[in-house]
């Protein structure tokens, strides 16, 4: 339960933080929809709404389990879309009809499970003797496994930084899915006896959720860590300006690195121009460290490809 709640807290935070950016940029949307669907899935574990109450709202009959699984499948589908967009591979986008087929198959199998009430978080294990319950569990986990493997394949070689972390999480979650499939199959066919099944089913979710938490930390790396690193860089640039007295009377460092990204871009540009002016006037010669900071700050701007002056006066 702690793992699920940790994942819920992380994914909810990411959904809120990434909302404004997803609103403005289409590339950011798949990962945001993944976080929204993931949030829906993880709220079915009893927090913040008790499972019985939640299930009653859905009409009882353990539809809470179905909601959890459908939302998880949707979340992974959107995550795969985000990773596919990132990897820019030729066959990167999964056809939406595949998601439709997967959700339909899972729903049909769920509806065919007998004696679904009362509300239980372990419905599939409770009813594992029914072939359809076993098939439901296998179908759900199979879809999850396929999407995770596909996602990991897309980024295994090309992923950098936070995407490597997401890929590592996907691989671990995929291994958790394999364990879950094995446990469900063993339980259905009665292998290992009841005590083995019970103890194994308690721990089998751990790799799945640890992998999920790692994936979320990877996304958090891109959402939180990269902007913080950018602000630290701007802070260092500001310090260079302060140390060399380019802008006496300007805002102190803490305020310089806060603000919207538009303000930060403007501030960075202003600092770079001040530094450039001082260099050209012979008032400032940057050290190697300062040069590295200045170069990294210059790289913060997207080059304007329209700015292409005609070069004249080149020495022969």
């Amino acid at each position, binding site marked *: 339960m702690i793992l699920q709640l940790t994942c819920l807290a992380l994914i909810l935070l990411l959904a809120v933080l990434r909302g404004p950016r997803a609103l403005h940029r289409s590339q950011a949307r798949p990962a945001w929809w993944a976080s929204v669907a993931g949030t829906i899935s993880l709220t079915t574990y009893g927090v913040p709404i008790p499972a019985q109450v939640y299930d009653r709202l859905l009409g009882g009959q353990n539809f809470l389990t179905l909601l959890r699984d459908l939302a998880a499948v949707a979340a992974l589908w959107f995550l795969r879309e985000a990773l596919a967009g990132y990897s820019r591979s030729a066959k990167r986008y999964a056809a939406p009809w595949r998601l439709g087929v997967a959700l339909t198959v899972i729903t049909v199998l769920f509806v065919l499970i007998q004696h679904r009430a009362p509300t239980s978080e372990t419905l599939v294990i409770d009813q594992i003797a029914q072939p359809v319950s076993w098939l439901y569990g296998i179908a759900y986990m199979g879809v999850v496994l396929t999407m995770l493997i596909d996602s990991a394949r897309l980024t295994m070689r090309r992923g950098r930084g936070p995407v490597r972390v997401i890929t590592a999480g996907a691989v671990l979650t995929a291994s958790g899915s394999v364990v879950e499939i094995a446990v469900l199959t063993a339980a259905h066919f009665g292998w290992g006896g009841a005590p083995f099944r019970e103890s194994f089913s308690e721990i089998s979710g751990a790799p799945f959720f640890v992998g999920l938490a790692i994936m979320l930390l990877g996304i958090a790396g891109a959402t939180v860590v990269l902007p913080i690193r950018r602000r630290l860089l701007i802070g260092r640039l500001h310090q260079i300006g302060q140390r060399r007295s380019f802008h006496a009377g300007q805002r102190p460092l803490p305020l310089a690195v806060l603000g919207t990204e538009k303000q930060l871009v403007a501030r960075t540009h202003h600092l770079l121009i001040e530094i450039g002016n001082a260099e050209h006037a012979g008032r400032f010669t940057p050290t190697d460290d300062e040069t590295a900071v200045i170069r990294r700050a210059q790289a913060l701007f997207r080059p304007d490809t329209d700015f292409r*002056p005609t070069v004249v006066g080149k020495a022969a």
Partner: protein
Amino acid sequence: MSTESGARDRGRWRVLQTNEGPRSGALVRAADAFVGRLELPKHATWTDIQSAVEGIYGKPIVLIASASPALQAVTGLWIDAADFGAVVCREADQPHYQAQNAFHELAHVLFAMAPDKWFTKELPRTPLVGSGGPSRLCAYSSEETIGLSQSEVAVEEVAFAMARAAQTLNRSTEETYFG
């Protein structure tokens, strides 16, 4: 196009700033409003800004980067020819620095050509140092003669406002999809 010695006589030189003090928030806002009158698209490019200024100027503007080592003491200039204008920056400068200097020269064009109603108390139209009007913009101005005049401060602030309209953050692919 003139030679550089000719340009010295005919071009308006941008001097390096030496002692910039704290920027006035009112001036920054006035500069943003001034550039807002160009009705640029949300994510403007150099071409958008150049075209908008050409519309006010009434002549095409040629963008040139001088690779001449003789262009040492200044970072940019505007040459006002009869049928066109030329904005010159230095090829040796970093691209963002070149762009700022080119924006600065475009701002000079606007200060000379924009309608009176564009100017406000915070951002007044200031006479060009050593010039009698657009046809004679071009007297050489040294740091000593121009210092950091109010005119240059205002022009530079408009250049910053143009840069703000054009610049965007260069996000990594990771941040684009997951940030």
